[in-house]
């Protein structure tokens, strides 16, 4: 059965159970439970890293682990740890179930990246979705939370149904749900006779996946969920699960259907272009920072889809690098949003921030500039890397569109800077000092500049896992 290759996941499952027991015995001791969770995660991370180069197949072909999947694990771990740090300052009184859901969602994501069977993929997807529901709805009494949770639930169920239909059709066509077998059969048999079926399958699968990464036109949930959910959870949502979404796309489209990229490339190309433009254009009119970042995350998904269209080795590396750098940007931004306060996330609430708390304004400006993709920040290098993979396969128009979108996005990202630096506050409040939120902010800034100025080391590691 080869169970040891899933040792990190097993450790995490035990931690999850432990968290529930501790919560039962001594309820609502947030920092204690959080620390236990962090320790569990660090232990899992340790085993993950110690087995970094070990590849293997386990659980009767259900999971296939390689260094590249462990690269994704790393992003998930970073997201989870940053979320726990944020939660220490952000939540005053919540039950320890928060950490339980956090761990289960982490397990869901990790299994997603490692599953080599469509059914396994589906199961881990559901694990992830349901855990996320718990995270989104954790503050039951906050306004818009019920709306956000319900919306996420309905649409997640909806997209899962599509995905499941896709899986069933795949089974009908290939008599298997194993991804590498599908790939082999496609290589061997070709498309004769099964092309219409495959197209329908791919459309169904893509719909399911597009929901996860919030691609147009399956993005409707994003702004509402982003506005309603607690800021730290939103940061986690746009880092980890989104990366997981791309991991599934890599699994199904790039691995499973790699023999005939021409049948899905068209769909993904249009998806990428529309997602980029729609996300950026919609963000232009948004005056709430959380909603704006929701549209921006849609736009970022569009950029990453560009890499998928190019179907080459660089694309894999570019996606991992992008999600890594995006994790830091988004956590940094949401750390500051958490400090200012969830219910004060209108642009007007940021007016004059440079006067009341210059450091926060400066950091926020860096996060916004990085998201715009200005050089020396990781936002530039990651975007550049993604478009480089597209340019390599001669998708010149996608590259031009991508960078033009960068110019469009400059408008709304820099508008935040305008409010912070160029407008005066109507009333000035001092922002309280939050040690954990600040630590996340510093971690984010350090990594943004590290990845932006000296990406070589990380490039090397990622490329070596391919």
């Amino acid at each position, binding site marked *: 059965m080869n169970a040891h290759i899933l040792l990190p996941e097993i450790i995490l499952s035990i931690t999850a159970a432990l968290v529930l027991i501790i919560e039962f015995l001594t309820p609502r001791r947030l920092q204690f439970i959080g620390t236990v969770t962090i320790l569990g995660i660090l232990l899992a991370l340790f085993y993950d890293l110690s087995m970094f180069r070990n590849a293997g197949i386990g659980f009767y072909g259900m999971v296939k682990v390689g260094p590249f999947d462990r690269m994704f694990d790393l992003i998930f771990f970073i997201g989870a740890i940053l979320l726990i740090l944020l939660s220490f300052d952000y939540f005053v009184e919540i039950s320890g179930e928060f950490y339980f859901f956090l761990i289960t969602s982490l397990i869901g994501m990790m299994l997603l990246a490692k599953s080599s069977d469509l059914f396994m993929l589906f199961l881990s997807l559901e694990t992830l979705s349901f855990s996320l529901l718990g995270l989104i709805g954790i503050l039951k009494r906050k306004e818009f939370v019920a709306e956000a949770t319900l919306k996420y639930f309905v649409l997640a169920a909806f997209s899962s149904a599509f995905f499941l239909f896709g899986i069933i059709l795949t089974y009908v066509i290939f008599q298997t749900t194993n991804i590498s077998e599908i790939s082999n059969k496609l290589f061997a048999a070709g498309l004769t006779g099964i092309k219409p079926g495959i197209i329908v399958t791919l459309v169904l699968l893509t719909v399911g996946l597009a929901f996860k990464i919030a691609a147009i036109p399956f993005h409707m949930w994003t702004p509402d969920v982003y506005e309603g959910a607690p800021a730290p959870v939103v940061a986690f949502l746009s880092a980890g699960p989104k990366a997981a979404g791309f991991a599934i796309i890599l699994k199904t489209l790039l691995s499973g259907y790699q023999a005939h990229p021409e049948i899905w490339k068209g769909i993904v190309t249009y998806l990428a272009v529309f997602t980029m433009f729609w996300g950026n254009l919609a963000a232009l009119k948004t005056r709430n920072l959380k909603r704006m970042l929701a549209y921006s995350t849609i736009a970022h998904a569009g950029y990453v889809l560009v890499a998928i269209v190019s179907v080459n080795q660089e694309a894999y590396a570019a996606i991992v690098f992008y999600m890594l750098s995006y994790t830091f940007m988004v956590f940094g931004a949401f750390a500051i949003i958490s400090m200012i306060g969830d219910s004060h996330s209108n642009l007007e609430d940021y007016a004059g921030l440079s006067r009341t708390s210059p450091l926060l304004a400066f950091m926020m400006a860096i996060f916004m500039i990085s998201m715009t993709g200005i050089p020396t920040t990781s936002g530039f290098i990651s975007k550049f890397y993604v478009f480089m993979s597209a340019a390599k396969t001669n998708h010149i128009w996608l590259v031009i569109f991508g960078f*033009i979108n960068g110019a*469009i996005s400059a408008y709304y990202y*820099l508008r935040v800077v305008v409010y912070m630096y160029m407008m005066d506050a109507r009333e000035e409040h001092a922002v309280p000092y939050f040690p954990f939120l600040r630590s996340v902010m510093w971690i984010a800034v350090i990594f943004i500049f590290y990845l932006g100025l000296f990406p070589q080391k990380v490039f090397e590691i990622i490329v070596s896992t391919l």
Partner: protein
Amino acid sequence: MKLDLLSLVIIFPIIGAIPVFFMSPKNKKVLFDYTLLMTLVEFLLSLFLLKGFKFGLYGFQYEHVYKWIPSIGASFHVGIDGMSLILILLTTFLTALGILSSYNYITHKAKEYVIVMLLMETGMIGVFASLDLLLFYLFWELMLIPMYFLIGIWGHERRVYAAFKFVIYTMAGSALLITGILVLYFYNHSVTGVYTFDLLKLYRLNVPYDLAKKLFLAFAIAFAIKVPIFPFHTWLPDAHVEAPTAGSVLLAGVLLKMGIYGFLRFAFPLFPKAAIHYAPLFMALGIVGIIYGAFMSWVQKDLKKLVAYSSVAHLGFIVLGIFTFNMYGTQGAVIQMVNHGLSTGALFFIVGMLYERRHTRLIEEFGGLAKVMPVFSVIFGIVMLSSIGLPGLNGFIGEFLVMLGAFKASKFAAYFAVVGIIFAAVYMLTMFQRVVFLKVKEKNLGLPDISLREFFVLAPILLFIFWIGIYPKPYLKMTEPTSSAVIMQIKSTQNAEKEIKMLTGPVGEEISLKITGRKAR
């Protein structure tokens, strides 16, 4: 890792900015004194570059390669030739003066101001020193943010609009530039099998005509927006008018030159055949810019807007000059870049000083300044004449050479350019008359004459205005190898090996003979 002088010049302003973070924002004077000191040290460092610079040599000096991202073939490759050096000197010179001029002008957020100015200095110098396309792009885009803050925070009424317009225009242009760079990069790989952004290696590439035409346009549009060449110029008046004085000076003095520099350093040598193909188009656009800029300046009521549109006209001359592809035109354009930086920079300083006194820039509000501010008016007059291109002052040298070049390349173009010079005299003299002469308006009666600090802002510029005007030889000699290398790269397109050979400069001799009337050396 030992740092070489050029890299030190590039990163010194950023290093100098670090202590500012720990300084108190309350004490404005200390902040400015410190920053002035830093910019002066930086200027001194750039003079050391000049000291060790070997004149008349072809190729790049102070060349250094540090590892940056080897896996994609990008390196921190810097090096300068005469053109880069003269522009770097201009940058450090104008930044120091810009700080000196802002002591009274900047009333709030002084700490942020000096950080932004220092960051911008690094960006500008980096652009002129990069020999790696990705590094160049990095500095090129990095520039945007400080300039955006400069316009947006310390600008005038419509500052936010102007700042956005500036950033979005430039970024849209950069989209084409970076795409062009990527295509060139992969084309190079397909030919040589090497992934590299190194400019000197890419110079050896012979890009096929069809591809070169597209790539040239991609580069050219990005640079044309920055210059700005006629249909892309609309951001310029807004940005210039709204920016604070030092911002306008750096914008006119240095940032606009980055576009021209881009043509000469990247677009021409990489795609020579395409450059020849599109030359008539760009010459025409240059001429349109000259005439259009002149007409627009003529009708402006706002002093700063007038100077801004006169920039469009001057840059039209420079564009005309570089697309003549002969020694006169190119040398004239390069020297005119410096001249424009000096005279337009000085004009912006002057407008800023007037604004500090009267808080208006409307021409009709002034009048009779010669009586109340005699010294100021004399300096203003000299700068204005240098901008028109009066013989004996720096503007003449550049415009005359461009004219010569244009005449050799296309007589038709030269006729129009001459008309442009006449218009320049018309709008500048009209403005000068209305501001400095006529009857003294009551409101202007008590205006103080130029202060010592202001004098020290303008005096160094005056020195160079006369120096270049009377004895331009050292400047021409400094940029001569660059110009002839560019021309050779264009003219020898049939020659696959575009190695730059050593040769002496007979053309330079001829030029200095024509202008100064004496034999060089």
